[in-house]
């Protein structure tokens, strides 16, 4: 999967939880889920569960620790898919 394809999938996953439309429209690797998209911290769990379902991977607590932005989510998903 290319980075572009991955971003498209992540964008669809986070869509239901965002509270800042402008930041969502310009979502890129540097977008922060909380600071930019204003995702409620409890909904970060939903994003993590949705990522697990979409990519059929399992995310451990250590993986979740840094999953606060698109870039780190991409890195973790990629490493799990290649494992």
């Amino acid at each position, binding site marked *: 999967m290319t980075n572009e394809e991955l971003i498209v999938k992540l964008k669809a996953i986070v869509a239901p*939880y965002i*509270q*800042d439309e402008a930041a969502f429209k310009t979502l890129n690797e540097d977008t922060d889920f*909380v*600071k930019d998209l*204003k995702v*409620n*911290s*409890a*909904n*970060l*769990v*939903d994003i*993590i*569960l949705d990522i*697990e379902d979409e990519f059929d991977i399992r995310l451990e*607590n250590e993986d*979740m*620790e*840094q*999953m*606060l932005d698109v870039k780190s989510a991409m890195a973790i998903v990629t490493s799990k898919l290649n494992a």
Partner: protein
Amino acid sequence: MVGNDIVDIVEAKKQSNWQRPGFLDKIFTAKEQQYISKATNPFIMVWRLWSMKEAAYKLYTQLYPSRFYNPKAFKCSVNTLNGKVKYKDFECYVNTKITLLYILSEAHLDKTDMISEAVIFNKNDYKTLSKITKEILLNKISDRYTIPKSQLRISKSEFGIPSVYVNLEELNIDISISHHGNYGAYAVSDPARFQKPCRYTIA
């Protein structure tokens, strides 16, 4: 130092499905899941524990500036009214107020009374609530320390920890701000040196 967190009960019902498979297990320890399953109202227990974890995280990151997401590692123990949260070697006391409308938790290093004040809004809009809660907090600080409000501002560090500035200088007080759904909450905690001196009259 103080860390607080408010949960709008109606909003929590709308925003999250705590009964979704995997949800509880990602956030709560085995002991916390027991509190939830044994509670008369499991939904309220879920958000009580959640707000305790959030308040404790906000206190922890003031002591150890950092940013991460690991709610499960903040381990709660609760009794009827209050509780404690542990994260690694860090431990704090958490007071929780549960009303029909919101759940408000506040974490301190020592046992102390709750100082957070809640704000009820007639609108549910993230940006407006964030802005107005800060305004109310700044008004309060302006009154308490007699500093013109125009000179005060709140700025967040790279880790998202808020501080109050008078012009360019950081004010030596700790604050915590939270908002969710239709509710906001703020707390101002004074270090001893900022408290007003008492007057002593010698006869």
